[in-house]
């Protein structure tokens, strides 16, 4: 009896030790808010993150095994899709919205341009199931993964259980995406006292705080709400944004306020990717805003910026680029096994 107690005590210590070794914490600066994602329900673990990374880059998630998450969320574009105004799925089909950049997702409350998805875990179901994106079902994905020796092994390593389920697939994908933290732009270095803004950047920062910060609130550079920024409706797409989810009139033409971090890597801009250049975006805010009922109150008054001020504002916005994030090898295609 004593022996068995000793053995089980040792076993308990070993399992506790192995648990502490693989558990991962999100690392972010002190001036970031507390994450929205409840990590107690999906504890980060190196082997689950590694599994999620494999799934993220694997076209097995699509009906014809041609499109992976990374097809539209490329690491070199801060996980957006450069040069594609709207998303591009199986059989060369195109959707109606621009694939958003993926980073700092632990802080995001709702997902998609219209907030239709209420949790990061569930987000992947939307592109997997959309006929113009991956055109697949989660049940079929699970079946394909169960048939692959590599995944049976990788799921076993991650969950100590060989049964692959929809829950485990979604949680592993969420874990990898939770690790995509961008918090080391020049802006962050200045904030941490490790660098200084140039005079031009400093002036741009002042303009930013005056004109942009109400919605693109620092340090996340979004206030995580939905707003109408006065874009005219593209009548070939007829996308009314959040109204399509809530059917409330006041939500007509409201779209998610995106973060401005990594903006040089994430062109084209806006929910339908209509602007290729940042200059066009600034010109929209100074000259292109269309008045309508649900227009954001901050934009009801014209924003007047001289061309010099625009140059300064752009100089500041470029300090939000985080090349260390974009070229982080840990986020890229996993090495072939």
């Amino acid at each position, binding site marked *: 009896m004593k022996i068995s107690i000793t053995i089980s005590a040792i076993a308990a210590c070993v399992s506790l030790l192995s648990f502490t070794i693989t558990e991962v914490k999100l690392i972010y600066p002190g001036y970031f808010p507390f994450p929205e994602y409840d990590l107690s329900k999906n504890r980060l673990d190196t082997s689950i993150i590694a599994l999620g990374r494999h799934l993220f880059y694997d076209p097995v998630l699509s009906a014809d095994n041609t499109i992976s998450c990374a097809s539209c969320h490329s690491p070199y574009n801060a996980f957006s899709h450069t040069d594609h105004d709207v998303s591009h799925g199986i059989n060369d089909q195109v959707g109606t919205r621009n694939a958003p950049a993926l980073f700092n997702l632990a802080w995001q409350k709702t997902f998609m341009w219209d907030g239709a998805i*209420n949790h990061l875990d*569930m987000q992947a179901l*939307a592109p*997997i199931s*959309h006929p113009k994106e991956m055109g697949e079902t*989660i*049940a079929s994905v699970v079946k394909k993964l169960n048939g692959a020796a590599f995944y049976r092994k990788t799921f076993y390593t991650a969950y100590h259980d060989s049964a692959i389920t929809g829950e485990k697939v*979604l949680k592993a994908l969420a874990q990898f995406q939770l690790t995509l933290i961008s918090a080391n732009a020049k802006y962050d270095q200045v904030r941490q006292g490790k660098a200084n803004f140039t005079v031009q950047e400093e002036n741009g920062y002042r303009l930013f705080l005056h004109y942009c910060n109400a919605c693109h609130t620092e340090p996340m550079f979004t206030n995580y709400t939905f707003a109408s920024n006065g874009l005219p409706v593209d009548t070939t797409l007829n996308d009314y944004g959040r109204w399509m989810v809530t*059917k409330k009139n006041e939500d007509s033409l409201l779209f998610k306020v995106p973060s401005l971090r990594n903006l040089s890597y994430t062109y084209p801009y806006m929910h339908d990717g209509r602007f290729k250049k940042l200059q066009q975006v600034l010109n929209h805010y100074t000259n292109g805003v269309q008045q309508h009922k649900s227009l954001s109150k901050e934009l009801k008054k014209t924003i007047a910026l001289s061309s010099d001020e625009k140059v300064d504002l752009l100089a500041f916005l470029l300090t939000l680029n985080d090349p260390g994030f974009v070229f982080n090898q840990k986020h890229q295609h996993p090495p072939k096994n």
Partner: protein
Amino acid sequence: MIIGVTFNRINYFGLKSQITFFFLVTVSTFAYSQKNIRSIKFNPVCNSAPVELDKKYAYKTDSIEISALKFYISNIRFYQHTKLVDEVIKKHHLVNIENAQSLIVNHSNKKNKKFNRLVFCIGVDSTTNVSGALGGDLDPTNSMYWTWQSGYINFKLEGVSKVCPSGKNQFTFHIGGYQYPHNTLQQIDLQINNPQKIIIEINILQLLNQLKLDESYEIMSPNAKAVEMAKKIKAIFSAAK
């Protein structure tokens, strides 16, 4: 008492006594729980006949066939008058007509408490709807989760009737929605006269008879029609006498 005696008698064998002890405990718990298992049977019917997939039932001027019937039962509680006496531990249970086992919820009533009311919900509560990926009966591979807009489908009924002017004469009801004003979760409170044999009947024909399938044959998103339908669904649940 038998356990105690056996344990003491062969105690000096160390390990052996431990095994005997566990064996006896397991056997006695098993016997105890067997006696006190309380089964709740969900019995989908078309009037008096049990629902069978793809079988023709008389419907208005024509006939109907049912091709899918799945729904969530959650938060099952037992009451004696107004007092809560017991509850089923497993919070959410998916009933699927294709899987005979899923029609039965087993509950071990260890305390053997008396009850005369059964209270439960049809659907998935709002907290669960915003809790991320879940497993078992709530795993999204069960095709009871909307992918384009987050939320569980509480009640799914699909079938065919010539009355429907739709493609292939299909009717499709995916009833869900967890947010105000389109919350479709329904709570049911049923009087139980025979606690030894709980059978809940769900009369699908009674539901379909209230609908105008020639006009409305599709509900597949959280909206006012779904809320109206959810109330009609609640009304077709009854405790068999």
